[in-house]
C-alpha cells in the first residue's frame, strides 16, 4: 500500500525546524512551534501506527520511483511503533526543554536542531534504503554533536571530542559496509538486498560484510567493546538533550541491528553466539560501571549500556520469544531512559547538582514528584508489573529455551545491580538529608507555575506511558508478537516494497 502520509512525522519536524530557523532568536515563538510540532508529530505517528496496525505494511516511493530504484519509505509495525514511541518521548523532551533549557542555548539554535534530530530518528526508522539510512544516521549524529556541544562547557567539549571521533568511526564502518554490499549485490534497497543476498554465491563474503554493519551499529548502540563514547559523553549535555540521547540515540543503533540482522543477514550460529557474548559483556560492563558512579547521569549512562546488553542478548538468542523480549524492552527502554534523564534534569533544578553525595532530601520536600520518580525508577528496574518486567520474562525464558544460561544469569545479575544502584540512588538523593554544600540550591521552588508544570508534566507523561505499558502489557505483546513475525517472515515486507 502506497501512502504519502507515512513520512508525515518526519516532514512535521522538518517544517518545524525550518520555521524555527526562520524565527531565529525568537525563543518564545520557537518554544510554541516546538511543542506544537511535537504534538502534531505524536498525532501523525499515532495515525500512522493505527493505519499500520490495522492495515498492514505501508510504503511510500519517494519521487515516485518504484523500489528498488528510488528511495522507499516503509512503515511496518516495527518502524511505526518506534516512530510512535519516539514521538511520545520527543513530545516530553520538547515540553521539558521549554522550561529546562537555558535561554542562551535556545538563542543559538537548540530547538531547530532538536527537531532535526527527531526528524533524523523518524527517517532512520522509516527508510527502506540502506544508504538513505546512512544519511539519516548522519543527520542524527551531526545534530547530536551540535546539541552535545551547545553551551561550550569544558566537560561538554571534552566529551564531544570522544563522542564525535567514535561516532564518525562508526559511520565509517557503516559506509564501508554499504560500499562492500553494493559491490557484491549492486543494490541498495533493503528489500531488494534481502532477495539478492541469499543468491550470492560466496556467502562468506556476506558474513564479512555483516561484520561491518555489526561494528557500525554496534558502536552506535554502545555494545561492549564498542561502547566507550557513551559513558564519556552522556553526562555532559543539558538534561533535555541527554534525555533525547539516552532515550533514543543508542536505540536507533539497536533498531538498525535488528533491521539489518533480520532482513538482510540471517545470523549463523557463530554470529548468534558472538552476539550473546557481546550482550553478556555489555551487561557486565554497564552494571559494573553503574556500581561505582556517584553522578546520577553517569550512573544512568552506565545503565544504558547495561540494558543495551539485554536487547542485544535478545537478538543473539534469535528466537521469536527472545526477539519479542528485546523489542518490548526497546519500547520500554526508550520511554524510561528518556524519562530518567529528564528526571536528572529535574533533580538538577531541585537541587542544583547531580552528585549523589551532595544531593538529598527531595522526598521530604517534594513527596509527590518523588513518588512519580520512584515509579519511573521501578519501571527501569523492572519491578513488576511495570514496563521493564515483561520483556525480561521473555528474555529469561528464551534464554532457558536456548540453554544460554550464562546470558540468563547475566541478565539476572544486571537486573539485580540495577535494582541495587537505583535503590542506593533513591536512598542518597531522595531520602538522605542534602549536604550543606553551597552548590546545593533549589531553583525549582522559585519558578513560575507554568515552568514548573513544563518540567514535571513530561516526567509524569512518560511515567504514565511506562505504567500503561506495564499494565496493558497484553497489547504491547500483541504488537511485539506481530513485529517479530515480520522479522522472522520477511516475505510480506519484501512484497510490500517490491510489489
Amino acid at each position, binding site marked *: 500500500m502506497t501512502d504519502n502520509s507515512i513520512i508525515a512525522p518526519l516532514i512535521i519536524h522538518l517544517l518545524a525546524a525550518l520555521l524555527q530557523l526562520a524565527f531565529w532568536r525568537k525563543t518564545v515563538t520557537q518554544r510554541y512551534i516546538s511543542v506544537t510540532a511535537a504534538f502534531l508529530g505524536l498525532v501523525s505517528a499515532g495515525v500512522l501506527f493505527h493505519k499500520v496496525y490495522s492495515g498492514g505494511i505501508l510504503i511510500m516511493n519517494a519521487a515516485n520511483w518504484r523500489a528498488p530504484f528510488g528511495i522507499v519509505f516503509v512503515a511496518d509495525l516495527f518502524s511505526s511503533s518506534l516512530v510512535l514511541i519516539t514521538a511520545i518521548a520527543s513530545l516530553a523532551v520538547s515540553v521539558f526543554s521549554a522550561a529546562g533549557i537555558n535561554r542562551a542555548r535556545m538563542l543559538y539554535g537548540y530547538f531547530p536542531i532538536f527537531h532535526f534530530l527527531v526528524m533524523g530518528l523518524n527517517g532512520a526508522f522509516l527508510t527502506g534504503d540502506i*544508504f538513505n539510512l*546512512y*544519511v539519516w544516521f*548522519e543527520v542524527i*549524529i*551531526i545534530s547530536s*554533536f*551540535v546539541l552535545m*556541544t551547545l553551551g*561550550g562547557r*569544558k*566537560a561538554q*567539549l*571534552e566529551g*564531544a*571530542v*570522544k563522542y*564525535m*571521533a567514535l561516532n*564518525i*568511526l562508526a559511520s*565509517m564502518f557503516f*559506509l*564501508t559496509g*554499504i*560500499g*562492500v554490499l*553494493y*559491490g*557484491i549485490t549492486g543494490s*541498495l534497497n533493503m528489500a531488494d538486498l534481502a532477495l539478492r543476498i541469499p543468491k550470492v554465491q560466496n556467502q562468506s563474503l556476506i558474513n564479512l560484510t555483516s561484520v561491518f554493519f555489526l561494528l557500525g551499529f554496534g558502536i552506535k548502540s554502545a555494545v561492549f567493546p564498542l561502547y566507550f563514547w557513551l559513558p564519556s559523553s552522556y*553526562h555532559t549535555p543539558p538534561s533535555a538533550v541527554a534525555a533525547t540521547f539516552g532515550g533514543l540515540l543508542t536505540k536507533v543503533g539497536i533498531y538498525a541491528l535488528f533491521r539489518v540482522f533480520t532482513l538482510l543477514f540471517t545470523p549463523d550460529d557463530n554470529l548468534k553466539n558472538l552476539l550473546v557474548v557481546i550482550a553478556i559483556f555489555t551487561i557486565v560492563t554497564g552494571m559494573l560501571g553503574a556500581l561505582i558512579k*556517584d*553522578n546520577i*547521569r*553517569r550512573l544512568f549512562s552506565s545503565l544504558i549500556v547495561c540494558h543495551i546488553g539485554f536487547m542485544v542478548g535478545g537478538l543473539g538468542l534469535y528466537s521469536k520469544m527472545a526477539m519479542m523480549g528485546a523489542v518490548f524492552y526497546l519500547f520500554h527502554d526508550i520511554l524510561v531512559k528518556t524519562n530518567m534523564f529528564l528526571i536528572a534534569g529535574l533533580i*538538577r533544578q531541585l537541587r*542544583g*547538582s*547531580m*552528585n549523589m553525595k551532595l544531593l538529598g532530601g527531595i522526598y521530604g520536600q517534594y513527596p509527590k514528584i518523588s513518588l512519580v520518580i520512584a515509579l519511573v525508577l521501578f519501571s527501569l528496574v523492572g519491578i513488576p508489573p511495570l514496563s521493564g518486567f515483561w520483556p525480561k520474562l521473555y528474555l529469561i525464558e528464551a534464554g532457558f529455551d536456548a540453554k544460554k544460561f550464562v546470558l540468563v544469569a547475566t541478565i539476572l545479575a544486571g537486573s539485580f545491580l540495577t535494582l541495587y544502584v537505583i535503590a542506593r540512588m533513591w536512598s542518597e538523593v531522595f531520602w538522605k538529608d542534602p549536604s550543606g554544600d553551597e*552548590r546545593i540550591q533549589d531553583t525549582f521552588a522559585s519558578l513560575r507555575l507554568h515552568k514548573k508544570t513544563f518540567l514535571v508534566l513530561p516526567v509524569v507523561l512518560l511515567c504514565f506511558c511506562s505504567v500503561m505499558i506495564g499494565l496493558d502489557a497484553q497489547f504491547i505483546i500483541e504488537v511485539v508478537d506481530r513485529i517479530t513475525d515480520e522479522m522472522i517472515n520477511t516475505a510480506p515486507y519484501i512484497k510490500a516494497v517490491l510489489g
Partner: protein
Amino acid sequence: MELVLVCLIGILYASGMYMILRRSMVKLLLGILLLGNATNILIFLLGNLTAGKPPVIPPDLKVFNDIYADPIPQALILTAIVISFGLTAFAIVLLKRVYVLVDSDDLDDLNTPEEEDI
C-alpha cells in the same frame, strides 16, 4: 589497475587508523579525513571501474549506446563527501574550541575528573 587501487585503499585505511591513534587532536582530524577518503575510494572501486566513460548521456542520444561508469557509487560518494565536509567543518571548529579551553593539542588532556561534575 584494480590491484593498485586495492593496495591504495589498504594504505589509506591503515594511515587513517594510524593517524587517529595519535595523541594530537589535529592528527585525529586528519585521520578522520583519510578514513573518509578511503571509504569513498572503496565504494568507487567496488562499484567497478570504467575509464573514460562518464555517466552523462551524450547530447544527441536518449540512452547510452556505449558502456558507462556506474553512476550510483558516484552519487553515493558525492553525498558522503558533502556530509563529511559538514562533519569535518564542525570537527575542526570543535577542535579549535577545545584547544582554546584546555590550551593543548593533546587528547590526553581531555579528562576532567569526575569530581568536577555538577
